[in-house]
């Protein structure tokens, strides 16, 4: 039987390593590559302007690549459950293909669409290619649970063997019997999204540091792989959070949107490593991809993964509700230049180094402001180019010591941490130009500078630049005690009946306590 097939692009915005697309081409006479602008996902609250620009770029790039194969991209606006029945009828569709996505919204949306497809007698086929492995299989291998430590996951990965090899992009040969019916007013009906379409203020856009799209992602991959020495020696913790240009690959946004296949990335690295001495996971580049796998697995195996309530692995903490603190953090005016510079780069460029993420995440939650990680998660989702549901939730819980990580005595200092890799504060000067003239001695702590120094630098604390929002030394001490309380509550809750409780455990509040919780979590 010959098919009229819709290939539904959601993530996986690429032609290389796209098994679902290849499946669409089998016995296909008419192909409709579709992208749906879903108001639930694509609105100006969830998607900041940098992310939007990236997506628009990726879609244009996809359309461009499809044209070379005598096809086109159809951008349809509306809710998938409303859009699809129309398309099924209009185009007389017989098959629907898509790349599997594990996010809860995606799973429920896809379930709805599959039901509708069945009603319209459309065959539905999905393939797994967004992650290195089949996540459900990974969980099965771990006795039905998501592994809670990276090392445990590595052990499972060893038994599963290396990930599947990527498949090449479709060629003209593959497309020879396939047609994509395209009307003259294709541009009007299925037009590419514009920058201003969601209502963002496009005047606020900065220079595009990371253009979206498959071509760009493959080009960057080639460029980085050429630096074989760097690749082999790569150890992410040794890279700098505040170097002036990114010190890591910045391929993450491309992997998030699916412009670059994770498996392609993996196997290219394997080629470079072959025969050469190289760093090992978790610090190596392979390790980075495994971290992504780790959080995807956790997000599938743990219910309510993006929330504290109803999340069985997340410590229940009475975070403060403090809109002023949250706004100051979000808008880069905490009075701590290191934090503010990072949040400025985040808003302007959509990307910050992973250690910078650690610093601001710790600062917002257990380190200083004692605000819920769910709030930070929302801000990152909006602003980060590589913002990913699973990774965002997982990392926020990790950094706030809510899950996976319990050594809450390890707090990032908003003053000292940045100094290690950038004594002169060049990074701060780049993103907070009003602090440019402050001497290196005071640039991380401008409130300590004598009045005369502040005046000479043209930056008075309290007038031109805010006072520090909290006294780090004072507040981090309190927060460590609060964290301990939250952990103590965790163990008594597990005990159940209130009649068992006489008084909170009296033994020495110690490393032992902190670490025992960790063991329980495994």
């Amino acid at each position, binding site marked *: 039987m010959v098919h009229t097939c819709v290939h539904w692009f959601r993530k996986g915005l690429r032609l290389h390593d796209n098994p679902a697309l290849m499946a669409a081409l089998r016995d296909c006479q008419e192909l409709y590559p579709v992208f749906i602008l879903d108001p639930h996902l694509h609105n100006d609250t969830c998607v900041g302007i940098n992310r939007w620009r990236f997506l628009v770029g990726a879609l244009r790039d996809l359309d461009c690549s499809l044209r070379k194969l005598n096809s086109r991209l159809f951008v349809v606006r509306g809710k998938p459950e409303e859009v699809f029945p129309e398309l099924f009828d209009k185009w007389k569709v017989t098959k629907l293909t898509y790349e599997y996505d594990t996010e809860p919204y995606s799973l429920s949306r896809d379930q709805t669409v599959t039901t509708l497809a069945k009603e319209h007698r459309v065959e539905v086929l999905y393939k797994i290619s967004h992650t290195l492995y089949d996540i459900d299989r990974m969980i099965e291998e771990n006795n039905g649970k998501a592994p809670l430590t990276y090392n445990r996951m590595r052990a499972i990965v060893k038994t599963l063997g290396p990930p599947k090899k990527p498949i090449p992009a479709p060629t003209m040969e593959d497309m020879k019997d396939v047609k994509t019916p395209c009307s003259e007013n294709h541009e009007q009906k299925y037009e590419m999204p514009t920058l201003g379409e969601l209502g963002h203020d496009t005047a606020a856009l900065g220079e595009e540091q990371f253009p979206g799209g498959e071509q760009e992602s493959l080009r960057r991959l080639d460029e980085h792989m050429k630096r074989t020495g760097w690749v082999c020696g790569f150890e992410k913790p040794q890279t700098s959070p505040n170097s002036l240009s990114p010190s890591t690959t910045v391929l993450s946004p491309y992997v998030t949107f699916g412009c670059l296949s994770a498996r392609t990335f993996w196997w290219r690295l394997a080629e470079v490593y072959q025969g050469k001495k190289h760093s090992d996971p978790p610090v190596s580049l392979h390790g980075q991809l495994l971290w992504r796998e780790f959080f995807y697995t956790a997000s599938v195996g743990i219910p309510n993964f993006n929330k504290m309530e109803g999340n069985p692995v997340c410590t229940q903490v009475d975070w403060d*509700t403090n809109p002023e603190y949250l706004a100051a953090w979000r808008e880069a005016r905490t009075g701590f230049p290191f934090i503010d510079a990072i949040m400025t780069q985040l808003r302007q460029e959509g990307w910050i180094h992973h250690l910078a993420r650690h610093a601001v995440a710790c600062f917002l939650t257990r380190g200083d402001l004692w605000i819920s990680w769910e709030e930070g998660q929302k801000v990152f989702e909006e602003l980060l180019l590589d913002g990913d549901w699973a990774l965002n939730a997982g990392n926020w819980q990790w950094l706030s010591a809510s899950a996976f990580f319990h050594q809450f005595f390890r707090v990032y200092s908003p003053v000292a941490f940045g100094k290690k890799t950038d004594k002169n504060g060049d990074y701060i000067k780049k993103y907070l130009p009003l602090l440019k003239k402050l001497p290196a001695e005071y640039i991380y702590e401008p409130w300590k500078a004598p009045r005369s120094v502040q005046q000479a630098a043209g930056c008075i604390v309290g007038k031109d630049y805010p006072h520090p929002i909290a006294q780090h030394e004072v507040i981090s001490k309190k927060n460590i005690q*609060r964290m301990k309380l939250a952990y103590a509550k965790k163990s008594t809750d597990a005990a159940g*009946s209130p009649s068992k409780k006489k008084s909170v455990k009296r033994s*020495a509040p110690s*490393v032992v306590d902190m670490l025992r919780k960790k063991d329980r979590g495994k």
Partner: protein
Amino acid sequence: MKRIKGGEEDGNGSSSESSPEACKKVRTQTSEESEEEEEEEEASETPESDWVRLPQELLLHVFQYLPLLDRAYASQVCRRWNQAFHMPELWRYFEFELNQPASSYLKATHPDLIKQIITRHSNHLQYVSFKVDSSTESAEAACNILSQLVNCSLKTLGLISTARPSFMEVPKSHFISALTVVFVNSKSLSSLKIDDTPVDDPSLKVLVANNRDTLKLLKMSSCPHVSPAGILCVADQCYGLRELALNYHLLSDELLLALSSEKHVHLEHLRIDVVSENPGQHFHTIKKTSWDAMVRHSPKFNLVMYFFLYEDEFGPFFNEEVPVTHLYFGRSVSKEVLGRVGLHCPRLVELVVCANGLRPLDEELIRIAKRCTQLSAIGLGECEVSCSAFVEFVKLCGRRLSQLSIMEEVLIPDHKYSLDEIHWEVSKHLGRVWFPDMMPTW
């Protein structure tokens, strides 16, 4: 499981002795019934009648396993179960959770339930705690409840701030009068947790006057209105005190000597928070003889010290032997001070260093391994140690190291070991699989 005692309020007047007999009665009844059932397979015995015959003591026993909400549901089933729900034994322990619903992430105890407890059960309460969020309203609500516990003979009282120290926002007189109600009425307080509250010397005097024979545990870290004299009054008269937590400014030679006096029981646990309020603060010293007296009197006591100081404020500390067992540096501490720790802390069991700096702690750690022979747990945050020195450290400590929590960035690879080789070496010496702690790459 706690043994149930028939209380004076118990209506049917059954004493504890009758419970096992009552149990036997039920058992024989049910076994008789099962025999009957076996003989007459068609007989349909209504199961409800068995439940009615369940003695109050057993009902109570079962109810004690249920969380409050389930018990409350159970209490609505019938009058007997409702009576059981209100038995005094079920109201000995209570934790009041006071949060403002608009701003708290956690649920609060229902105000109607609070009212009910105060009217019907305040004289049953013995072990009580209050958990409050960062709003002043919640802390004030806690004080209001406290003021009404007039008929209460509390054994345990805990005031816990889960977010910000909101008890400090309550007008001091309101707080003190509420607390005094409990001190005066209880007369049998054994455990008191009042960290981060505006408690003062006069109220401590009231505490001592009424509870000196029973007080065993007192936690009052970060109580700025108390003076060394105030806490000395407690130590001088409460000879049963076993656990004490306070800030360093309240510690004195006299206090330690009072805790080591002949009449005093062995101290089990002393926690001291050393906190700098302003950079460059001066701290007094404690004489070695005072510490020696403590160790002589209570050879097994845990001395837990939390240091939140700036690097240049450590002058008065660790120049002589100090019997600290659990040592925690909340901020950056210099190599030099860690060197002194190795020299002067022979009783050290646990050590946590949040941050140190960029110079490796090789010698300091090895000295600690050699001289702190009781060390069994260590945690290192932002520090640096060369891999070889770290392996040497673990080798010297051997299997006594039950907790080894090192961030992966702490370990600096050298000519002998790389990061992946080190986890094998360390695992070998520890006798179990060990990995450094890692942070995810975001």
